[in-house]
């Protein structure tokens, strides 16, 4: 589980570095389900950051505790 999370983080870092070094004017797409949506570099970086935050936050407990 921990190794999977680390691999995901590595992949995200690779994507992040790739985007940062990408010359301007290149189109970037983000996959939302089956749809590929064109995004700006800033939006893509933001989406990657959000993905990282979601992953690093502890899993929420299922069902309410009274």
């Amino acid at each position, binding site marked *: 589980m921990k190794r999977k999370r680390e691999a*995901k983080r590595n*992949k*995200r870092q*690779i*994507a992040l570095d*790739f*985007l940062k070094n*990408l010359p301007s004017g*290149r*189109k*970037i*797409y*983000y*996959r*939302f389900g089956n749809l*590929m949506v064109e995004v700006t570099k800033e939006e*893509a970086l933001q*989406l*990657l950051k959000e*993905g990282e935050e979601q992953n690093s936050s502890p899993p929420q407990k299922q069902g309410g505790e009274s």
Partner: protein
Amino acid sequence: MAMKKDEKRMADLTRQLRSVINQIETLRVEISRLDVLVSEYRNTITTLRNLKDLGAGKEVLLPVGSIAQIKAKLEEVDKVVVNIGSDISVELPFEEAIKQIEKEIVAVLTLRDALEKAMVELYARVEELSQKIREHGQAEATGEIKDEKEKGSEKK
């Protein structure tokens, strides 16, 4: 008492052996998954090169699910959209896209090599554990024969 200790040792060795065999199986599955990936990437490069040779304006069939296709025209073959991971794809000039895919192939093959090395080490561990189990089994058997002989002489 000694008997119980022997049995425990044997069970422990067998458990270790089973665990190593499971690890080998997991590695084997992962390696074949990587082989499929490399083959898929190589096919992608071939397809891209073929499309580039055919040139823009060529009619192609676009798959819609696995059963239907619709006609489409190649609008541009000088740019390719490549997935760079984490749901992000980037439009790259043709040769850059090919280089990026080749880079991915190298990365996958490096990982494959590492897994194969780990598998070789695990096979050595299997050999080592099997040898220990055999030796232990033999020692146990001779111990039992000795015990039976001793019991036999006591009866006489």
